[in-house]
């Protein structure tokens, strides 16, 4: 582990080729490919449980295509695993806001997931505007916004505006929530 840390520190030194950026053992890459292969196995096994209606006229039943998809997934995943084992690593995506030398910040990713999960509870319990305010403020804070009250204010504003535009003006039935339900304008 210390070796890996050492190596990744050394790799960020200027002048080094980007291909040697992450010399750690690609556990994550193997794991992801393995999960994909497992999904393929699941597709194959699950296909066996699809009920074929007796006496159906169609030659190709509802199971055949799922079998094919499962086989494709398993075969492709194994091919990826072989490639990775031979040293052909995946190239992480580029992007305008991506720092290619930064290590993966799992904590921030976790925080964002939690913020997004809050939608599951809040949309129907507290209403759309509040759910957006919480998601927005939480996400902005996780991503490093300095002033949380600004984030909360912007989030609340965004929630109310989307409620008005989508819920009232465009007629989508977004729940206004118990706090706003008594204001007649928020009824779609």
């Amino acid at each position: 582990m210390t070796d890996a840390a050492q190596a990744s520190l050394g790799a960020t030194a200027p002048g080094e080729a980007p291909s040697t950026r992450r010399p750690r053992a690609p556990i994550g890459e193997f794991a992801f490919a393995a999960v994909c292969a497992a999904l393929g196995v699941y597709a194959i096994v699950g296909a066996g449980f699809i009920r074929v209606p007796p006496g159906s006229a169609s030659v190709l039943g509802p199971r055949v295509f799922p079998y094919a998809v499962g086989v494709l997934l398993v075969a492709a995943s194994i091919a990826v695993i072989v490639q990775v084992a031979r040293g052909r690593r995946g190239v992480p995506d580029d992007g305008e806001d991506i720092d290619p030398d930064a290590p993966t910040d799992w904590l921030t990713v976790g925080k964002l997931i939690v913020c997004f999960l809050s939608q599951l509870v809040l949309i129907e319990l507290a209403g759309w505007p509040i759910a957006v305010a919480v998601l927005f403020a939480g996400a902005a804070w996780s991503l490093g916004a300095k002033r949380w009250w600004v984030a909360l204010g912007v989030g609340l504003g965004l929630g109310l505006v989307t409620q008005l535009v989508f819920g009232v003006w465009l007629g989508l039935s977004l729940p206004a929530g118990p706090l706003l339900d008594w204001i007649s304008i928020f009824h779609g």
Partner: protein
Amino acid sequence: MDSLTALLEGFATALQPQYLLYALFGVFIGTAVGVLPGIGPAMTVALLLPLTYSLDPTGALIVFAGIYYGGMYGGSTTSILLNTPGESSSIVTALEGNRMAKAGRGAAALATAAIGSFVAGTAATLALTFLAPGIAKLAVQLGPADYFALIVVAFLTVGALLGSSVPRGLVSLGLGLLLGLVGTEVLSGQQRYTFGIPSLADGIDVVIIAVGLFALGETLYVASRLRHGPVRIIPVGGGWRTWMTRSDWARSWRPWLRGTAIGFPIGTIPAGGADVATFLSYAAERKLARGGAKAEFGRGAIEGVAGPEAANNAAAAGVLVPLLTLGLPTTATAAIIISAFQSYGIRPGPMLFENQSGLVWALIASLYIGNVMLLVLNLPLVGMWVKVLRIPRPYLYAGILSFAGLGAYALHFNVFDTLTLLVVGLAGFLMRQYGYPVAPMVVGGILGPMAEEQLRKSMAISQGDLLYLVHSPFAITAYVTLAVIVALGVWLKRRKARYEAAPTLVPTGAIAAVDEREPEKS
């Protein structure tokens, strides 16, 4: 001449004040969102889909066409002015455009990109106007086996050509196909992979797959390695009237036309969309450059912006040909557009020009109108787009997450979709992390059910004889072409990788000087 009359009728619809407003709204919001860094055309279209939920089909498609073209325009602004590469179809533009901007010629780069996009967009839309009805007429005669062949071609080219390796593209495709399987199977009414959950019985909407992969997946991925510190935007000086000098025009018009000629055909075949077209155009311009221009390549040659930008937009129009005439999406963006059609109960395909001709021609007419609007909107408003580029990143991505949540919830007003979105988003994050392309997954999600339907239809016709799949000359041609396309594509990708790996010829001193000056400005 038939299509000309129909087109004029389309214009009569699209020029109605309310539809003009819709078009203006579409191109405006499409550009604004497309300019945002990290948001490519596919994400723009996916995020803005809820806007069209309550419009009438014609209005919705007009807004959508505007968003589609606007997102394309916006992307080029980002890649020219931001100090880092942009979305895949604009990266080639960034190669030269970014350097032009650093050398103080940003205005010329933006202008040649915008005007080139207009020229290419208009020319390609013209080609679409005259090609599409003919292709639709031919396509009516295609049987299920032919369709299956076309879909297989689309699968394999999209799967094999995108991403860093062929197996990774196929894994992505397989995941999309698996998601496409979930739900109630149409022919026999059996539930597949639904775990008995009623929400899953209707299947997983492609919008969920697209928003999850592009909006949520991208945000999580950016969050995992966010670039901190000030946003570096290259300043653009001078008024927009003096943007392009006489020599800029002289050097631009040929690349525009060549870019269009390269982009449109590539857009129409399932070969990975705009990405391949822009690269080919760039390579062509680099080869054709003579004298001073040749020396400028790598340091900001205007041909290297004009050509690829034109190719990009021509390909965007080209993608609409198989989309409208065959109902085949060949890019992730096209897959989302198809699902928008489907949500109105419209099935794109050969019958579209007969059954919904009013709608289709209004859509095509609005593409012309949108292009003009974009030209007018983009040149003078660049100052505004630059401000959009400066949005602090935490707020930008928090906003993307909020709109992703809206897009998922507004589908069925059920938080189960939100949960599905999160799962797909996580998959999208991991796929980016490990170098899997996400576009094949979106295409697989929408084309998978179509492929199965056509396959089962063919098998029903042939009583289970697999040879039926290759009985028609069309299907055989398709499979042969597939082999050629894949071989050619893999070869092209190798070349592209070599281009990108080659060290650039920029005198780094000049760039460093620009970089140092910047923080004062922001």
